Structure formats: C-alpha cells, structure tokens
C-alpha cells in the first residue's frame, strides 16, 4: 500500500533536512577566511597533483558495462524466484537457458581480457 511508504517519505525529508540544517548552522558559526592552500582538494594530507577532472582509462568503462548487464540479469531473477514455487521444473529450465546464454557473454568478456584489472 502506498500509505506505508509515507514513512519512507518522512525519512527522506528528515534526512535531507538534517543535512541542510547542519550546513546552515555550520555556515553561521564558522569563520570564513579562505586561502589558496585551504581551498585545495583534500587528498589525505598529501599534496594534490593536477585537477580532479582527469581522463580515466577506457577499461573502467568496460567494468561498469559488465556490471550493468548483469544487474539487469539479476532483476529478472527476483520475479522468477517469487513465482518459482508454483511453476516448478519448467521455470527452472527457462531460467537455466536464460543464464546459460548470458554465461556465453561472461566467457567472451573473460576471453577478451575485459575482466583483468589494470
């Protein structure tokens, strides 16, 4: 029932309000004396090298891509698992075929070295 989600909505509103109020009071209380060293991006105490906007390696995109494809596959497992008890062996065979087709994709990615961390 949607009315049960009113709690989720309240939680979201309180979460956002908490962060905003904290930032607001911090702005009221703190002194504002910026200088170039303070404004540098924080890298665990090390001196920052270059800008935070750097070009990433394309192979990171391939990891994101593989994640997306198998995320979508996972979403199909939920309704299958919910309906499994009433369907039995037929549903098992269907999902077996479904996953086997995608295993080819995983094997291809593995074979091409797309899973290797650089």
């Amino acid at each position: 029932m949607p009315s049960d989600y009113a709690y989720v909505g309240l939680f979201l509103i309180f979460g956002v309000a908490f962060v905003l109020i904290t930032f607001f009071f911090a702005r009221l209380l703190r002194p504002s004396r910026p200088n170039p060293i303070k404004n540098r991006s924080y890298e665990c105490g090390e001196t920052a090298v270059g800008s935070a906007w750097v070009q990433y390696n394309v192979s990171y995109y391939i990891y994101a891509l593989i994640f997306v494809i198998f995320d979508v596959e996972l979403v199909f497992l939920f309704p299958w698992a919910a309906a499994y008890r009433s369907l039995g062996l037929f549903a098992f065979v269907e999902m077996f075929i479904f996953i086997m087709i995608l295993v080819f994709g995983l094997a291809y990615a593995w074979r091409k070295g797309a899973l290797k961390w650089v």
Partner: protein
Amino acid sequence: MFDLAFYILAVLILGSALMVVTLRNIFHCALFLVLCMFSIAGIYILLEAEFIAAVQVLIYVGAVTILMIFAVMLTHQLTGKTIRQVNDQPIAALFIISSLLVLTLLALSKTTWEVASSSGVSPSATELGRALMTVYVLPFEVVSVVLLVALVGAIVISRGD
C-alpha cells in the same frame, strides 16, 4: 494526501528533467537525471506498482546513470564549459516541440479514459514472474539474447582494435 505527494513528485520530476536538458555542466545533468529517475520511482509507488518502482531504482538509478557518469568522466573536455551547447536550429525545434505538446495534451483532455470498475489488488512480483514464465516466455528468453549482444557488442566497440 495522495494528491499532495503526486504534485510534489511531479514538480521534482519536471524540474530535474528541465535541468537535465538545460544545464551546461554535463556532470550536473547526470546528477539531475538520478533525481528525476528516483522521483519517477516515487510515482510508481503512488500507482501501487511497487515492484516496478524497485526495478526502476535498480536499473535506472543504480545502473544506467552510473554508466552515464562513467561516460561523462571519459569524454570530459577542459574547454567543454564555454562551448556552445545548443545546435543551429533551436527555433524550429521549439516550434515542433510546442506543437507536439499541445497536440498530446489536447488529445489527452478530449478523450474519456476507461478505467477498470473493480479495484482489485495490484499485481505483485509473484504474478509478474508467473506472467514472464508462462505467457511471455519467448520475450523473456529473447531478453537474454539482447543482453548478450549488448555485452559482446559494447566490449568489441570499446576495445577498438
């Protein structure tokens, strides 16, 4: 109560969608896309399509926008912020867009929509799964082929050589 939630979500969706198509910084566009998709999931919850709302968050908020942000990081140009963002024919485009909007809203207001008289329970994940496994079994298997083709194709494209 429902009306209020609907209006708040509608304002959130339309505001963030307009931000997506107008902001200059592509990264901010991607973040507003996340907000827009999340609010649409809220609309699905108002419609009592809870499973679709969960899938919306998982696929769009969790996966597609992550991919968008990766692509923004990979194609970022240092000069990108000052470059012209709009193409050569915005006036013709706006004419087409406004006529499209007027036409759809006119058709919408002129039609009387039939609504099921019985307000039965809304379909759950179990019924969705049963429909996927029985009536829609062929689309279900084709989906895995689509995903396989997308995976192989995208790997071939982005590895280049």
